[in-house]
């Protein structure tokens, strides 16, 4: 029987965002997005869980060295932490920075940074916007 081996590391970041579709009227934006359409944005304390899957290396006993994963996460989150995502992050110039879209963007970034080595690759991104709300994103094939 084949067993799946997963490893997850969590990291927090704080950012602000605004939900706004430029193709819609102000009225429609307010109707759909409510308070999230406020003109100056609002913020959350997010936390992201990066889960990798792979084989446990016989010599190290690890799927991935957690120090390496921590460094990758810190580097990726530089574009997110203490940023106004709509203005300060390159990925949301034309994409609404919803929790869903942030998770999808992070999948692409982490997938590339972790590489496609079948011995250790990205399995899932879980992004918490608050304690009571999270999204999971994963894609079987790139």
């Amino acid at each position, binding site marked *: 029987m084949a067993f799946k081996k997963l490893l997850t590391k969590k990291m927090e970041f704080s950012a602000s965002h605004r*939900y706004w*579709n430029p193709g*819609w009227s102000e009225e429609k934006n307010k109707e*759909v997005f409510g308070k999230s359409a406020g003109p100056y944005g609002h913020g959350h304390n997010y936390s992201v869980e990066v889960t990798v899957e792979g084989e446990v290396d016989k010599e190290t006993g690890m799927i991935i060295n957690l120090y390496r994963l921590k460094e990758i996460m810190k580097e990726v989150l530089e574009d997110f932490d203490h940023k106004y995502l709509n203005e300060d992050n390159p990925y949301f110039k034309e994409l609404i920075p*919803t929790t*869903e879209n942030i*998770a999808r963007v992070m999948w692409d970034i982490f997938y590339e940074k972790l590489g496609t080595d079948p011995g250790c690759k990205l399995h899932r991104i879980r992004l918490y916007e608050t304690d009571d*709300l*999270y999204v*999971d994103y994963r894609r079987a094939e790139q």
Partner: protein
Amino acid sequence: MTLTKAYRFSAAHRLYIKHLSDEENENIFKSCSNVHGHGHDYSVQVKVSGEIDPDTGMVVNIDELDRLSGRALGELDHKRLDIEVPYFVENQPTGENIAKYIWDRLKAGLGESLVHVRVGETKNSYFEYFEEASYLDEY
């Protein structure tokens, strides 16, 4: 892509089988068959699945999810389940049955997008209800 939102409600229940004596019920359900009932703060996680809508950036409108969940859980909140909620007059108000009840109540409004319901009775025990095939495919 799945999105999970957590909710809470508080309710009382008593687990017992009507045609058995108090003593027999106590043998089966232990302290859960206390004749005057007892209560929990339940935590509920509702998971929906779908593609991101390009116009909204969302899988589901959270206000709508909150409205549907609030309506379903509002019928349980601050109730004695096995007396005041018809479904639980007929079915034991266990975590297992509460999870199924919430699934059935939400399914009408959420349809195929609903993939998983989790009910926590205490911080140390929770119950999950989902259709195995669809949940595993999506997730």
